[in-house]
């Protein structure tokens, strides 16, 4: 099923990711690594919809944000323990995805995109204006990092390894999901919805289940997000957040497993490096968006693979 070559490549990548704190030397880079991993989980969850399902969502921040807000609110206001709060937050997020999925899947294509955007904006507006629960513009702060099973996540390195572990689980689970017969039916629903219907598949149900799964993993990213920052504000629910995730997926390569990680690394590193020098990150984000859409429509990973294949075949033929 999985060839030894692929397995060897995955092992090499895992070792490389595990070595980041050892090589990095200072906490700034370790934290940058954690941010990339969290963003990668978020982008992978969106990739289920955008890449494998062909459903471009511009409201994915909803799941990250709601999960993060729910965790902070349950832990602080209701006094729940971190595990219970996390589990409840994931349940709430999954229910939300189930409900939003029913609405958004009334349409496909651009209609789907507009509805997800509008649904996402509802939550953003709610986070801003429902001050009694969300703290409004100030958000909820002061959430302490937990120590799951006695593992204290206070330090940058510990949190990085925790994020890496969650990333590994998410990577494997999403890989199995899209590689399964169900994943094949999702891709079938993307490419040939009419034929799939003719073959007796319930295209709507396939899309809805994928929508819910995607929302669940978005919620997982939200848990890490809120514990990494110890803080949550309406920005987590903003259109910018959804658009950044979409950029990661498209830049890295939709419908590839590694694409979201590459895209997340690109966006997060660029954002941090650029923000250190100028305040105009959003301007650059927009410009990169336009450039990638025009020049690299199928993303970095497939683009690199294409170049690699061309180079390899030329070497094979010409002998140079």
């Amino acid at each position, binding site marked *: 099923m999985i060839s030894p070559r692929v397995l060897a490549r995955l092992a090499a990548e895992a070792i490389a990711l595990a070595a980041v704190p050892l090589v990095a030397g200072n906490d700034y880079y370790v934290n940058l690594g954690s941010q990339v991993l969290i963003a990668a989980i978020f982008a992978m969850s969106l990739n289920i919809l955008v890449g494998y399902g062909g459903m471009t969502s511009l409201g994915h921040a909803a799941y990250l944000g709601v999960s993060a807000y729910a965790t902070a609110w349950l832990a602080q206001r209701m006094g729940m323990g971190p595990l219970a709060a996390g589990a409840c937050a994931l349940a709430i997020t999954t229910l939300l995805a189930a409900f939003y999925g029913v609405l958004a899947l009334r349409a496909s294509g651009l209609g789907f995109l507009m509805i997800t955007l*509008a649904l996402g904006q509802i939550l953003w507006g709610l986070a801003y204006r429902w001050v009694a629960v969300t703290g409004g513009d100030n958000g909820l702060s002061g959430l302490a990092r937990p120590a799951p099973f006695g593992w204290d996540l206070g330090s940058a390195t510990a949190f990085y390894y925790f994020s890496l572990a969650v990333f590994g689980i998410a990577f494997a689970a999403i890989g199995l999901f899209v590689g399964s017969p169900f994943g094949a039916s999702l891709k079938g629903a993307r490419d040939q919805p009419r034929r799939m219907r003719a073959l007796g598949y319930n295209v709507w149900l396939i899309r809805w289940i994928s929508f819910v799964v995607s929302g669940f993993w978005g919620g997982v990213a939200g848990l890490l997000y809120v514990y990494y920052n110890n803080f949550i504000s309406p920005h987590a629910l903003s259109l910018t957040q959804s658009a950044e995730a979409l950029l990661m997926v498209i830049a890295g390569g939709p419908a590839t497993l590694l694409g979201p990680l590459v895209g997340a690394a690109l966006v997060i590193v660029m954002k941090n490096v650029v923000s250190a020098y100028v305040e105009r990150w959003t301007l650059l984000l927009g410009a990169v968006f336009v450039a990638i859409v025009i020049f690299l429509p199928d993303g970095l990973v497939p683009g690199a693979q294409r170049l690699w294949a061309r180079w390899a075949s030329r070497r094979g033929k010409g002998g140079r």
Partner: protein
Amino acid sequence: MGFWITQSLNSLALGGLLFTLSAGFSLIFGLMRIANLSHGAYFMLGAYIGLTLLRTGMNFWLAMLLAGAAMAIFGALIERFVLRRLAGRTLSQVLATLGIAFMIADACLWIWSGDPMPLPGPASLEGAVPVLGARFPLYRLAVIAVAAVIYAGLLLVVERTRIGAMIRAGVDDLDMARAVGIPVKTLFTAVFALGAGLAGVGGVIAGPILSVYPGLDADMLPLALVVVILGGVGSLTGAAIGSVVIGFIYTFGQALLPDLAYVILFLPMVLVLVARPRGLFGRVTT
């Protein structure tokens, strides 16, 4: 009683503003099959350009027309040099408009700083007039009138002129319109410029009521989406009725349930989606 009259007129004024925004959005979507996500940004940029012109002491209505013209030219350039390069790739076009929206928003923040700034309204329309026993700002009545004139003008163009017939043909069946020799490319540029120009005009007339501030674009874009989802794509009457409905819901929601007004706004959209996904007056199924 006074409360209801005042708030109803406020609702109509907000509906008028929304119409200037969503009419262009709806026509662009109907004809080009693009959700133009930079439409809110055109509204905001129009308002900022209007502000700069007004600060030179220019007449309000002239500033409005000039800002609209500037946005129309801007829109034509975007259509010609970005969107047309991506012709046939709808999703890429939509994402490009999103990138452009971010660039405009950040550039505005850069140039005009982060403070909310009200546009000074025309001096001749200051003060309030009695309407059915309630006192109502004269300027807002003028906004309702301007929006009504724009609606009538657009309706006249779309329903009664040759260009309007071409637009309707394109909305209904683009391939057939091409086949009978309608210059679709030129039509795209023209409609995109018209939509951007209307958004710019809307931004200026909204200025004295809403002020102009960073984030105005992100506030307005979802409203345009909701209006169009509600009214249906490609229909002027749908956009007009959707705008008024949203204007009423938002204004009364704001007055009666301030915390939840923003959420109540989206409820009709949810209902319409469940009952009639193509919108109340939709010509195109999305």
